[in-house]
């Protein structure tokens, strides 16, 4: 019986997401299982990278697929892929969860980001002295410290390798907005990853942060 089940699931693994969703909504349990195994990783990682909490990521993953079972009929294939739809739902649940736990910082004024952005041009390489493990840990913390609207774009475009177009679908904004947010998010990351300058180097760093006009 198990062999038969595995064989049927193998057959379904060739089916695209839209068809799996249709079958699942028609009551096909195997379709749900195949779709879950195919998409749970990206949903779980997105929630984990956004929240930094395994428990939240697990809860969000479960809630996303429960939502899909309950409200999957609202998915419109003409507006995007099932994967993007799931990440969009996950985004809503993550934000809701973080807001409930006061872990989501309020969206700050963009002028603060501009100050950080201007400090990027420096000779100090923020990552060269770090070991790989330290680098990864530092990057993870830096990503988690980003304001949500930049964090979302960095997570999707950099960590999830989602295209600009799909990211725009997930966030419900224009591709140009995605580009600008990613650019600013990366600048903020660099600013956060740069080690705190020594007192003596502060003056030099300030001088070197001036733009060149070559």
């Amino acid at each position, binding site marked *: 019986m198990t062999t038969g089940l595995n064989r049927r699931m193998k057959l379904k693994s060739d089916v695209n997401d839209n068809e799996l969703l249709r079958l699942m909504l028609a009551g096909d349990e195997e379709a749900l299982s195949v779709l879950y195994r195919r998409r*749970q990783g990206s949903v779980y990682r997105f929630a984990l990278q956004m929240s930094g909490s395994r428990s939240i990521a697990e809860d969000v993953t479960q809630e996303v697929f429960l939502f899909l079972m309950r409200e999957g009929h609202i998915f419109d294939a003409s507006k995007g892929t099932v994967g993007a739809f799931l990440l969009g739902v996950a985004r809503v649940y993550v934000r809701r969860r973080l807001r409930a736990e006061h872990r989501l910082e309020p969206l700050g004024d963009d002028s603060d980001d501009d100050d950080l952005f201007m400090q990027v041009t*420096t000779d100090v390489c*923020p990552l060269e002295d770090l070991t790989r493990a330290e680098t990864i840990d530092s990057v993870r913390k830096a990503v988690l410290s980003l304001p949500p609207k930049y964090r979302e774009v960095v997570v999707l475009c950099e960590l999830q390798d989602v295209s600009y177009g799909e990211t725009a679908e997930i966030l419900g904004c224009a591709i140009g907005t995605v580009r600008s947010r990613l650019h600013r998010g*990366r600048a903020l990351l*660099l600013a956060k990853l740069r080690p705190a300058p020594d007192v003596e180097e502060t003056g030099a760093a300030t001088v070197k942060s001036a733009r060149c006009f070559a």
Partner: protein
Amino acid sequence: MNCQRFETVVSELARGQMMAAEQRSEALEHSDVCDDCAARLSDEQMLTLGLQSLASEMESLEAPREIEAKLLAAFRAREVVVPITRRRSSSRYWLAAIAAMLLIAISVVVFRWSNRPADAPRQAVKQDQPQPQINDKSNEQLAQDVEKPGVDDSLPQRPKPRRVHPVSLRRPDNAAVANHVTKEIATDFIPLSYMSAASLQQEGGQIIRVQLPRSALANFGLPVNMDRYNEKVKADVLYGVDGMARAIRFVQ
């Protein structure tokens, strides 16, 4: 390309995104001659490496297996599960349709069966409406009938729609009585004294059902069946207010 323009493309350059070849070459040339922009590009490339390392480290992360088990359990427990295949779906529709048809057929049969006893007497009464209703007549009704000028006293010819009472006829007992009554045939009232028919009608009185020897028919000029000579015959005797018999009619 100047530094401001370089700043707009440095992220794309560091991430290896697709861009115009000419723009790319201009940006690289600018980073060669500008130390700050070269450093900026280097930072971006290091950041890209850091993010790629983080992504590759997390790439293998997956949700715990128990979540799938919980979801499948929740899926099975759903009350609104739609049948998987069309075949099963259509078979359910057929079953429902057959059940509905059976229910309707049973309802019709039960309805007709329950109404059958009530319909029969009603039809009988309707057919026999012109016939006399002797036993059910009250004295007052008889008096009214007698007082009506120009009305033929031959009761079998008089329609009496008021006497047909559907509610009471629905009951089997009443229906039997009605059948019995409506099957009677009576002669006209025959005066027993010298009073005129007009005075009989005005005076009114009381009717009493009696049984007489069949030979009494001959006294009033009516034919007698000799084969049933010894049998009795029913008759209604009309008594006046003074207690004297005024008229008689024979009932069969």
